[in-house]
């Protein structure tokens, strides 16, 4: 039932992102037409020309932002299409950074995906993997102060892995705790095991977690 719910949400979200793109396309063409007309109008015949041009450029920037958001949201929605699929971890960390973007902004934390130089593919439940990554980042953000950076680094050593590590910002609110002391740690480890992933604390100067394909 849970998988069906996820698939349902994915389908609805994917369809909505298509509609959003159509809305953005209409706004873009309408602004584009205004820009075309302004470009054809003599400089002295249009009062406040510069203000119009600046405002239209601002709308175009926001359209581009909206297109980027809906494209990423569409890719995210499609992660529930199949219960098991070939997933490139480089794309998975990009998607995860997108999914955690707003929470990171609220925590004033920077998210930095660090892809591997080559594709690192595994067979996994794509939505399950995203859930584990999201919760790992969330655990780390809860123990880091504002101004910190969380990196999601993909590597291909003995087995494919994602290392999620935090670098403390300049003014931590309190001493840094281990993310493994969070009450959600055991539940998260169980969820990872269900996906044939191993979740462990990563060694390093700051707090970190590692997701490894078992």
């Amino acid at each position: 039932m849970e998988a069906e719910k996820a698939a349902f949400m994915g389908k609805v979200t994917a369809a909505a992102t298509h509609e959003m793109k159509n809305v953005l396309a209409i706004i873009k063409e309408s602004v584009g037409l205004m820009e075309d007309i302004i470009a054809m109008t003599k400089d002295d015949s249009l009062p406040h020309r510069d203000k119009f041009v600046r405002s239209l450029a601002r709308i175009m920037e926001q359209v581009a932002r909206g297109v980027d958001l809906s494209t990423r949201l569409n890719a995210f929605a499609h992660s529930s299409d199949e219960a098991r699929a070939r997933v490139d971890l480089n794309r998975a960390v990009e998607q995860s950074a997108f999914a955690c973007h707003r929470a990171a902004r609220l925590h004033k934390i920077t998210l930095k995906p660090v892809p591997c130089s080559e594709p690192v593919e595994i067979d996994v439940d794509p939505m399950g993997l995203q859930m584990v990554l999201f919760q790992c980042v969330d655990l780390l953000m809860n123990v880091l102060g504002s101004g910190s950076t969380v990196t999601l680094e993909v590597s291909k050593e003995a087995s494919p892995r994602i290392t999620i590590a935090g670098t403390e910002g300049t003014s931590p609110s309190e001493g840094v705790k281990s993310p493994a002391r969070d009450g959600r740690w055991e539940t998260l480890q169980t969820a990872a095991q269900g996906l044939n992933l191993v979740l462990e604390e990563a060694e390093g100067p700051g707090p970190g977690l590692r997701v490894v394909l078992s």
Partner: protein
Amino acid sequence: MRDWKVLLVDDEEEFVSTLAERLALRGVEVRVANNGKEALQKIEDDPPRVVVLDLMMPGLSGLEVLARIKRDYPAIEVILLTGMARSNEAGEGMRQGAFAYLMKPLSIEKLMEKIGEAMKQHTGKVD
């Protein structure tokens, strides 16, 4: 005026009418259709050189319209419009003989460039 005869096909009326105005400002002779059936009728009445065709339409889908154009008017070049980059339909459309596909929202410069290239290809076929 360019010698570019283009048919724009999209069920989003506001999108297609505004895009048509922008192309007309650039000297393109442009007509619009809001569904596949209307598009095929307009092609039969007066074949364009290039069709810019949305893939996701109610009724006849973009792929069905493309298949009929390629069967009955093989010299007409078709540029597909798709909402998403990894769309399976766009790949299928290219296999069926589409000239190119572009992502919505469009860049007008990119669309003009692709129409120009498609016009050259069309001219090569009919000469």
